């Protein structure tokens, strides 16, 4: 029964992410266009909003290419593995006060742990492609994901301390407005670390179009390629939703259905900021990436944790 329910939620998560990705691609094309003084898509639908609907059949009818020397089983498996953790992570997000698709006592831990499986998916796809560039991209991706797990996890801990619970529902319910200024540094660290986790610019060395073509998914085409892209947009959406519900107080100051809408608006705003950052900053070097993670983000997260720990005594 639980399995069936889980599958049901999983299917719903996939749907949400698929729709979100379609919206996200259009939105990204619009945002990037405006940043480059262009208009972006405008032919299909109002303001080009149906452009992606037109693009999906194109992707569906693309030839499915599998390199001759690829490991066929792993090659076909990788897109699923890269996508699944993202979809699954969504079940712990408290969409409205007192309700999440799956109420889990260790939800925060679940949210942090499950997407980490993505690093394995990256390595699988890199390995399966049997291609130097893909391998390089996969190794970079694995190193990056594992490294940024540390500041990302540490940045969520202040909230866990404040709420006294690992349950996302509790965090959302007990959230007070002064938590935001108190955990601002943690929020920034979470945001930056999430950028690295989802391989978004300026931390997109695993893909790295200019050097590695497309990195670990260089050899994928058609729908398999689209699933990698969808996973990237899914990661953006899931991370933004999580940040909106925990760091930004979910529906605060509204409640009920209006609160849910406001929460989604906050998430969309965060997605927009992610795109803004990507289309503004150039890609960093791998060594800069690592030194930034270990020398700046991790200490900052630790300092924030100490500050919250000290403040907690006086509450």
């Amino acid at each position, binding site marked *: 029964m639980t399995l069936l329910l889980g599958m049901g939620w999983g299917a719903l998560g996939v749907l949400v992410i698929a729709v979100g990705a379609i919206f996200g691609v259009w939105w990204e094309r619009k945002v990037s266009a*405006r940043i480059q003084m*262009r208009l972006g898509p*405008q032919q299909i639908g109002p303001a080009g909003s149906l452009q992606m609907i037109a693009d999906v059949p194109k992707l569906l009818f693309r030839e499915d290419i599998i390199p001759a020397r690829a490991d066929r089983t792993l090659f076909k498996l990788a897109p699923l593995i890269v996508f699944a953790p993202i979809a699954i992570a969504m079940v712990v997000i408290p969409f409205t006060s007192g309700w999440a698709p799956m109420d889990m006592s260790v939800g925060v831990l679940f949210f942090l742990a499950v997407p980490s499986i993505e690093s394995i998916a990256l390595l699988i796809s890199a390995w399966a492609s049997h291609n130097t560039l893909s391998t390089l991209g996969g190794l970079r991706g694995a190193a990056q994901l594992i490294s940024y797990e540390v500041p990302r996890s540490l940045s969520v801990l202040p909230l866990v301390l404040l709420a006294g619970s690992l349950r996302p529902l509790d965090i959302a319910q007990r959230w007070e407005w002064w938590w935001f200024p108190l955990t601002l540094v943690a929020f920034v660290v979470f945001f930056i670390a999430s950028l690295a986790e989802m391989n978004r610019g300026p931390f997109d060395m695993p893909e790295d179009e200019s050097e590695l073509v497309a990195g670990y998914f260089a050899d994928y085409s058609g729908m398999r390629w689209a699933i990698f892209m969808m996973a990237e947009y899914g990661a953006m959406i899931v991370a933004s939703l999580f940040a909106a519900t925990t760091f930004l107080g979910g529906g605060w100051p509204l409640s009920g259905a209006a609160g849910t809408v406001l929460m989604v608006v906050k998430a969309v705003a965060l997605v927009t900021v992610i795109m803004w950052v990507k289309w*503004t*900053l150039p890609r960093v070097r791998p060594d800069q990436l690592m030194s930034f993670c270990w020398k700046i983000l991790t200490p900052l997260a630790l300092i924030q944790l100490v500050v919250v720990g000290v403040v907690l005594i006086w509450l």
Partner: protein
Amino acid sequence: MAVDPREVPTPASVSDESPAGLKGFFAGARSIATGLGITGRIAFGKPITIRYPTERSVLSPRWRGALRLRGVLGKDEVKLVRTVAPEYNRALQELYEADRLPPCVGNCPANVDARGQNYLIADDRVAEAYELVRDRNILPGVLGRICHHPCETACRRNFYDEALAIRPLHRFASEEYRKVRAERVSPLPRTQNKSVAIVGAGPSGLAAAYDLLKYGYRVVMYEGEDKPGGALYKGIPTYRLPRDVLEEEVGDIIGLGLQLHTGQHVGRDVELSALISENDAVLLSVGLQESRFVPVPGVDAEGVVGALEFLRAVNFTGEGGVEGKRVLVIGGGNVAVDVARSALRVGASSVALACLESDQEMPCHPWEIAEAVDEGVVPMCSLGPEEVLVEDGHVVGMRMRSCLSVFDENGRFAPKYGDETTDLPVDVIVFAVGQGSKVTDLVSGTEVALSERGQLVVDRTTFTTSVEGVFACGEVVTGPGSAIGAIATGHEAATSIHRYLQGASLTEDRAARPAPAYPNYPPVDLEGIESNRLRAVIEMVSPDERVKDFRPIEAGLTRDGAMDEAMRCLRCQSEVCVGCTFCARTCPDYAIQVERVDEPGARCVTRYDLDLSKCCFCGLCAEQCPTNALMHTGQYEMSFFERDLTHFDKGEMLRSADGTRATGRDGIAPPACPSATRREEP
């Protein structure tokens, strides 16, 4: 050679490592925030790309699409530039803005529709051509002999071979018009209950009279001489302008209803104040009456005359009092050349022409001085008058001083003289250094204001004087100029008078004449050019013969010659293809084939083919098309075409801009090719 990495320039923001420590951290954070601020600001700014396809019409006019012909001769008419005078400027302005104003019309001061004239003559509608020209240039036969033809200067054929003979065609049309004059000239109906008096029967006054008669006013004209024509009658030597032509054409205007009183000198025989009170409006077109002299010692001696007095004497009495004498003409303009050539004809033993300007700068038209030199006039350039040498009150010579430069760096008249002087032994000196107005007698007893120098105070755009209802036009306003320029001011003054008499504002909603600038084409190498592309040769009497008397020196065009010449006209900017074949000659890919029929009265384009499989869409053909008939359509995406659709013929190219066969917009069935309608010989 190895490159020193220190020499490789890299953008500062990339190459500069942030300083170490906390300072560097904040510097980096600030730099990221700056970058985000810039992109954020840009994102809310206006995009610079276009909103395709709704903004397609603002694409550059130079885009290249499939070629189309707007019209062809034989099927489409060339539109005549013909409107009533008050609307003429606006019509011109509209044509100019639509890039449909032919250069000959644009460059003419009176904007005579020379293109229309050529079209009608080639179509064997000579009388219509004459009347079309007469609407703007009221004396086509006169101007066909004496005009300085700015139309031919701007003629686009100068770019390809030789300018069209527009002026001789005016003359041809006037000679043909003689046959039908009696039946075509009749008094115009008088529809307005108002009368206008015009003082002076020169070209500008006649032009104004012609316009005012057409509006239906009663027009009374007063002329001091015993015959009309003004400077044309008094000044132009008869070898250039036979007086019967002038009489005939002024007679036409009288035939239209003009009441002309000759021998009535206003200011002496008739008072201007009486004219003002008797008529609703008065127009002063008295021209320039007085020769100017250079104030040098001895200028009042016997033997020094002014150009106007000399020409008048020659024209009226046939002798200038210079038989067997040595004549020196001072001045380098057209009047000076007229004086010099007339002096030869009345028996001067030698004629020299001295002017300040160098031979390149002479203000007269180059063909005038060339003809004069052929006849024996000795030009002496870069000499300025210093002193008239007098003995017993008679001229015995002229001391000239060398002139180094005439104009200063700003182009203003400021002659610089050298030290060298020359004494020329002469018996008669004619000063042709310009004319001045003499209007003090004319305006006495009225309130018409004069400037300190005794000139009429006139508004140069509305041609009003200081008294309401009194207007002025012609050279009395503009100073010495051309006959066609004076006619142009007459039209403008007539428009002002019409507006004044209708109670409308003189300036409101009044379009100014467009003033386009046309290039000066360098001479073309005519080597190897087909004979039918060359300008008609105008026969001239040999110099030895022509100096003997005042008979006209230039022959007119024959009927066949005129037809051929009129057919040479490219019908510029008419958007009707005349089959000039210059597109085919321009095409680097030999993709165009043009065929035409060159029959007088039935010229038409019979074939126009464009091979799209050769066309490289360079656009040179449309770029140089003198008629603008050839244009690029919007279908520039030749994204698909089939092999049998790669050939446009004339019928195909004449289709609308919305769809052509090659782009498949409107099906692939070839349309019935419209056959050119041929005009039969009458």
